[in-house]
């Protein structure tokens, strides 16, 4: 049990750190707007990971954990506010889901075009110059989705038509 808490803590902290560094890298290299999904993702992940680790640490400390002899109780209280402040978890999940779904919802566009075209300066949001990026940046963003294939778009899937 206690070893599980320790192992899970190590795994989750390291996962969250890599995701946060990835978001920071995207902000530096592609821009804040293009990194919006990842920025929302870390805002959900980091406080939740920290709260699970701190909660287990409190449990391991017994009564000491909830007292002020250790910093754990105050840490828990402070970090719990971060699931609400600067956008609650639910708003960030909504941002992520909407952006994910947007790639499938644009009329006449397949997943490839809708994920990349607006960055190149086409599509309904092209009027906003801040959203237009160079081809290199677009390839960097899009290659996240097809990293191993040299950005070859996948064939559009065909679905069976069900009789009503």
């Amino acid at each position, binding site marked *: 049990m206690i070893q599980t808490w320790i192992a899970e*803590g190590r795994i989750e902290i390291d996962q969250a750190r890599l995701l946060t560094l990835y978001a920071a*890298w995207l902000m530096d290299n592609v821009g804040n707007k293009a990194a919006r999904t990842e*920025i929302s993702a870390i805002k959900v992940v980091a406080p939740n990971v920290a709260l699970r680790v701190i909660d287990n*640490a409190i449990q391991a400390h017994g009564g000491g954990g909830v007292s002020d002899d250790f910093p754990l109780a105050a840490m828990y209280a402070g970090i719990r*506010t971060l699931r609400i402040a*600067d956008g609650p978890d639910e708003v960030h999940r909504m941002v992520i889901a909407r952006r994910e779904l947007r790639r499938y919802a644009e009329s006449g566009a397949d997943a490839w075009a809708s994920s990349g075209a607006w960055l190149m300066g086409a599509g309904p949001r092209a009027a906003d110059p801040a959203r237009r990026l160079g081809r290199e940046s677009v390839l960097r963003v899009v290659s996240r989705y097809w990293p191993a294939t040299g950005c070859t778009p996948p064939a559009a899937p065909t679905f069976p038509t069900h009789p009503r």
Partner: protein
Amino acid sequence: MDFEFSPKAAELRQRLVEFMDERIIPAEAIYRQQMEASGDPHFHPPVIEELKAEARTRGLWNLFLPHATEWTEGLSNLDYAPLAEILGRSPLASEALNCAAPDTGNMEILTMFGTPEQQDRWLVPLLEGEIRSCFAMTEPAVASSDATNIECSIRRDGDEYVINGRKWWISGAASSRCKVAIVMGKTDPDAPTHSQQSMVLVPMDAPGLVIERALPVFGYQDREGHCELSFNDVRVPVTNLLGTEGGGFAMAQARLGPGRIHHCMRTLGAAERALELMCRRVVEREAFGKPLASQV
């Protein structure tokens, strides 16, 4: 992509780790004594000023700005992230390096959108660590998770703006060192949804601005305070407008980007410290004939 520390980040990281070990962590006990002796939950203990002076001499000051300004070199988000994680290990560290929220976000938008006069009056003393600030957006009467709900009124009257509204969870406002609030409200409720909002700079001693109370979190009083504020016909000159009328929503978005990296990395630093405390505890204590660490 490459997450290796750049030479600059590696050098700063080394200096910061030394500062944490030599000064910040040992200062935690002194901080606690000074806070308890004062009897005031919003006391500004002298040890903080000592740590700030020391951090500055060590070149660990204002590291948070992601772009170069006339005051700072600027550090990329990826370079600052590992430093923020180290800062998260102690509640004293961010303020000691002048890298504490909400000032960091406020300083950032002042560098981006402030006029030279606004920068002289507010940004420079913030960068010098002489004053602190708060950011007033969230309101008790509406679901502020949707920022378009904000109701606070900022109405132009001649050469002045007149502000009326109520805010809460305004972090930092209880500190006597907090001298300015960046207030978000509506200048034009009839404009398109995301162009109704503006930000104005309001001195904390402006007549009509009242700190109603400092809200506790699970019973804890924060030293800087999470306050409820009321604005009752507060008047500021129109030159206190930050950016443009109607630009408040976009500026609020800009303010939060790098701040998210800071918050998340600091949070992970706190999680690392909790994990460390847990490991030390379970190795030292025994129950049912064996260390807690070997209980399954």
